[in-house]
């Protein structure tokens, strides 16, 4: 049985729907990422699990126990807030020990657990500092240690890394994953950063406008998005709006796929585009090239079914080196990697 189960949870704010009947479950020891744009309801969903926000209808169980009427402080959860929310008057040790002392654990028990947590997050040296004497990344580690100290069943993280700069964010992201594995705790991780969600989680739930559109493994979300929103939100895709004929869509020879609608959106990732000097494919002219290191992004002006369209392709930089603006190329896309949605 799943560890955390939400069934048809709805939440309305003054007529505005924040959660429109969300159902999702998280397995024991699994890390689930909630991914979606700003305002789609990620935080609201997480707060409903924590009990900080009451939902209007639906059901939530943790470990098979219905959480209706269970106050926040009695739920088996630990939470990390985007703004850390460390207690400013307590030292690092005081903060980490706080959930233990309010549960009236023995002094030695608290001290032992605090040292263990300091070790886990690598802050053994900073134990006696106050929160304002720590960097953002260190504060976030303290928040993580504080959430984990009382051995909760479920860890809830609300954009824990978004206030950090890119370098620290990447390091801490991998560290959060390591710690989560080490502790083996069921985790829900909220983020609006697709790379973060794909990198860190066992499954990703793509949210849009108060609902989950797709919930699947990162690789599946990336290669086979099931909705137009998921396809657009994950993977930075090219989008072409095209007319079909005879149940198929042919993009001027770039690809030829089945399309059971009259007008469709064809979406494909830039690394699935190939550009060749000659051969089959749509005619295109190289516009600009942007060197990104291992790959080079090449923007081309293609002629697709009689109208112009801009397409970008990510090529290995070695292959792109021979292309320069103005070159005529043939554009083709592996049809297996084209997602088609009704327009």
């Amino acid at each position, binding site marked *: 049985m799943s560890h955390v189960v939400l069934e048809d949870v709805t939440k309305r704010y003054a007529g505005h729907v924040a959660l429109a009947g969300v159902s999702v479950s998280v397995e024991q020891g699994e890390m689930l990422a909630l991914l979606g744009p700003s305002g789609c309801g990620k935080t609201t969903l997480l707060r409903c699990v924590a009990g900080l926000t009451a939902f209007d209808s639906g059901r939530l169980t943790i470990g098979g126990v219905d959480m209706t009427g269970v106050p926040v402080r009695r739920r088996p959860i*630990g939470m990390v807030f985007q703004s850390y929310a460390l207690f*400013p*008057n307590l030292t690092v040790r005081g903060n980490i020990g*706080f959930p233990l002392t309010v549960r009236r654990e023995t002094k030695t028990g608290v001290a032992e657990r605090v040292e263990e947590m300091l070790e886990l997050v690598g802050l053994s040296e900073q134990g006696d500092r106050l929160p304002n004497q720590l960097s953002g990344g260190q504060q976030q580690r303290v928040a993580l240690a504080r*959430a984990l100290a009382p051995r909760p069943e479920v860890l809830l993280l609300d954009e824990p890394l978004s206030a950090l700069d890119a370098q620290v964010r990447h390091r801490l992201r991998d560290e959060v994953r390591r710690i989560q594995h080490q502790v083996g705790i069921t985790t829900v991780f909220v983020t609006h950063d697709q790379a973060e969600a794909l990198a860190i989680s066992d499954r990703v739930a793509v949210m849009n406008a108060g609902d989950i559109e797709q919930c699947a493994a990162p690789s599946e979300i990336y290669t086979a998005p099931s909705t137009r929103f998921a396809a657009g939100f994950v993977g930075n895709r090219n989008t072409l709006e095209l007319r079909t004929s005879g149940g198929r869509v042919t993009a001027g020879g770039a690809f030829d796929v089945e399309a059971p609608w009259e007008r469709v959106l064809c979406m494909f990732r830039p690394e699935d585009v190939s550009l060749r000097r000659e051969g089959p494919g749509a005619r295109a002219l190289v516009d600009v090239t942007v060197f990104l290191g291992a790959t080079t992004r090449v923007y081309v002006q293609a002629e697709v079914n009689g109208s112009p369209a801009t397409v970008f392709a990510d090529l290995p930089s070695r292959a792109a080196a021979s292309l320069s603006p103005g070159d005529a190329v043939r554009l083709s896309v592996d049809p297996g990697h084209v997602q088609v949605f009704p327009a």
Partner: protein
Amino acid sequence: MRRRIFLGLLGLYFGLPLLAALLYSVATRWTDTPLPDGYTLDHWIGVFGKPDVTSALLRSLLLSAVVVVVDVLLVVPAAYWSVVHNPRIGSVVQTIAVIPFAVPWVVVGAGLQLVTASFAPGLFGTFWLLAAATAAIAFPFMYWAVEGSLIAAGAVRLSEAAATCGANPVQTLTRVIFPAIRGGVVSGALLVVATAMNEFALAKILVGAKFETLPIWSARQFVSRTLGDPNALAVVTIFTFGFLFALSALVVRLGRGRVSTIGRTLR
């Protein structure tokens, strides 16, 4: 430059009367000359030997202490509740907090007098009635100071964090919120003490001569048929000023570390 002139004028406006009172408190005789004829500490020594002055001082200190305790115990939890749990009652409390300033304290006193006379005659004319009334008119200072520091400290977030840590409301208030807003509570308390020390109208109406506070004693120096002791009045004025000034200086010094702590956490 203009700022200097402005500050200079302000200094004169506030400083001159104080300086005059200070000089008068150490003058032997000061009638029609620009400066006193001579100086002495006799008034300072004499005043604190006068039983009516020392007991008035003690009464005022007692009143301030009781009022400050009442206001801290009532206002901190109320402000916490209104900021963190029910912002809607915040606007009600804010309206109530304006009443003591919108209605003259003489009217408040007279009204209370009438009400207690008919509904609680046991309280009529007692110290406890005076303390309750003073606490009521001084509470807005405490409320504003506490509300401001609750918001600045991010009390909502801190309470939520404490709840997810398993803390109950009392633990949250005493271990997380109170330490984080101590600076605001202390400065609110200072304003409450200053109000209680100087409050005249309520004391005059509610208890009058039965419980002579320092302001009432001061007023008596003017209104008694034989003019009271003006030098002693000067001493008491300067003493009260010095006391409150020292108290605020202490508070500022104690609060400095804490306030900047909170400021940096917020950033």
